């Protein structure tokens, strides 16, 4: 990619994109734009359509209907140009297992007509962490190291837009935090990042997010705005017997939903329906001790659950 060229402000444009596999509607009418040098998160569970969306935007499969463009290039007409300018890290890290760390990076550089030396600055911070193992075959690396190598390989041709499909799935919380630190640095260098994740706590690390379920976007906004649009009253409840507390909360008809959330139970109530005091009274009648109920700020996970249609 030539850094001096004038890139449009919209890095990814996606309009009315739908895709089905036989009877299964994988994506229904997806619309969104990603701004230049933005980290945009696609957040949702397995099977929601995240990978299908990534494959359409990286020109690997065709949408049934709708249009999409990367850096202003159409996914249909200009697919060759798009493939030159995007970096794609698929869910299962498509590394060559029988090539060494070094050989993998060199291979990806060569495919894109460049060299490791030419763009080393961009991958340096990430690559130095795996460089001590550069003679090791990729198949023999741990999950965390594969992830770093795959990111290096996706970056070595200096893409303008980076597509990361579940880069942190199955990765421990410490490594996940480090990985997001790397993404922030890449954004500072002007790279646009579309990243998908099933971990709701990663949403707050994105500039904007789309919550996706069953092939549909439930919401697109900044994490802060999504949280501020939470409609219900939200409380965190605790008592000496958390299992029974969950059962009793579900028996109360004025309680809309109740789910375990770390060390407390999050309870949603329709605005103006129930008061903390009356719920406390009900729980005391049920025999609970040391009851604590407090109003709390929702997390993205609370928002997802409120918007979610899955009730199994």
């Amino acid at each position, binding site marked *: 990619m030539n850094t001096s060229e004038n890139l449009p402000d919209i890095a990814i444009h996606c309009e009315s994109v739908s895709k089905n596999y036989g009877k299964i509607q994988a994506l229904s009418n997806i619309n969104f734009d990603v701004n230049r040098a933005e980290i945009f998160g696609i957040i949702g*569970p397995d*099977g929601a359509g995240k990978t299908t969306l990534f494959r359409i935007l990286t020109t690997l499969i065709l949408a049934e209907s709708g249009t999409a463009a990367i850096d202003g290039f159409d996914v249909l007409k200009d697919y060759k140009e798009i493939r030159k300018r995007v970096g794609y890290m698929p869910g299962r890290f498509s590394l060559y297992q029988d090539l060494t760390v070094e050989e993998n990076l060199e291979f990806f550089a060569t495919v894109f007509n460049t060299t490791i030396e030419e763009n080393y600055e961009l991958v340096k911070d990430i690559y130095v962490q795996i460089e001590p*193992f550069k003679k090791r075959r990729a198949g023999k690396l*741990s999950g965390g190291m594969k992830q770093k190598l795959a990111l290096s390989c996706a970056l070595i041709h200096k893409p303008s837009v980076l597509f990361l499909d579940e880069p942190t799935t*199955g990765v*421990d919380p410490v490594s996940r935090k480090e990985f997001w630190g790397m993404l922030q640095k890449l954004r500072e260098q002007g790279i646009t990042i579309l990243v998908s994740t099933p971990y709701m706590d990663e949403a707050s690390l994105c500039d904007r997010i789309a919550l996706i379920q069953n092939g549909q976007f439930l919401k697109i906004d900044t994490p802060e705005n999504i949280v501020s649009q939470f409609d219900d009253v939200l409380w965190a409840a605790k008592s000496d017997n958390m299992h029974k507390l969950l059962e009793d909360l579900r028996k109360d008809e004025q309680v809309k939903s109740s789910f375990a959330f*770390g*060390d407390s139970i999050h309870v949603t109530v329709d605005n103006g329906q129930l008061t903390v005091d009356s719920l406390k009274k009900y729980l005391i009648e049920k025999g609970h001790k040391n009851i604590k109920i407090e109003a709390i700020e929702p997390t993205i996970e609370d928002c*997802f659950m409120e918007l979610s249609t899955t009730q199994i």
Partner: protein
Amino acid sequence: MRRAMETVIKVENLTKRFGNFTAVDNISFEVKRGEIFGFLGANGAGKTTAMRMLCGLSIPTEGKGTVAGYDIFKQPELIKKSIGYMSQKFSMYEDLKVWENLELFGGIYGMNDKVIKQKTDELMIKLNFEDERDKLVKSLPLGFKQKLAFSVSIFHQPQVVFLDEPTGGVDPITRRRFWEMIYDATAQGITVFVTTHYMDEAEYCDRVSIMVDGRIEALDSPDNLKKQFNAKNMDEVFQQLARKAKRVDS
């Protein structure tokens, strides 16, 4: 707290070396019947190696231990019969129907046909799965598969079930419903040994151990661990411990 305090898993100074690499370094702990024991650690900390030894799949280099009353050195085959196992990959036969999977796994564990049939009927009602009974597993939504995989893993009423990141990738509501099934299982006296990367789930365990570089660096109830590390949640506890790791994640 649960009444019975019988020990189901007991290991002392358990160690596993591969060449000169010590994957699991002298770990000791006990798990009581009906307990939910969370087994946490960063990638490469040694969790999988430790779990393989507990499941009778790998013989330790040193130490001693029993699972479900059987010796992990001498009686691995008896251990395998007494435990259940479920991983994130679910490992059910996708091209078999729901009831066929239950019959197959029940048969492997030596249950007789009559018991299998009766327990299948009960399970279909309990899970509200009667319409899915004759469907191929591959046609089920992820949340259904996960419920079924867990039900298969405890179908033979094992003493302890090992759950290896059972909730990866599922939506937040399904994830919580799954934990409600775990509580149900413990109410039947099944002991649950679970690994997870979701730190909120660490809070749902009775006790949690955190492995760093092959050793257990902390082991207590979530409340006590938070006090001990002066942390507001389990994620902070985990971050404090796992950042001390010296072993290169390899």
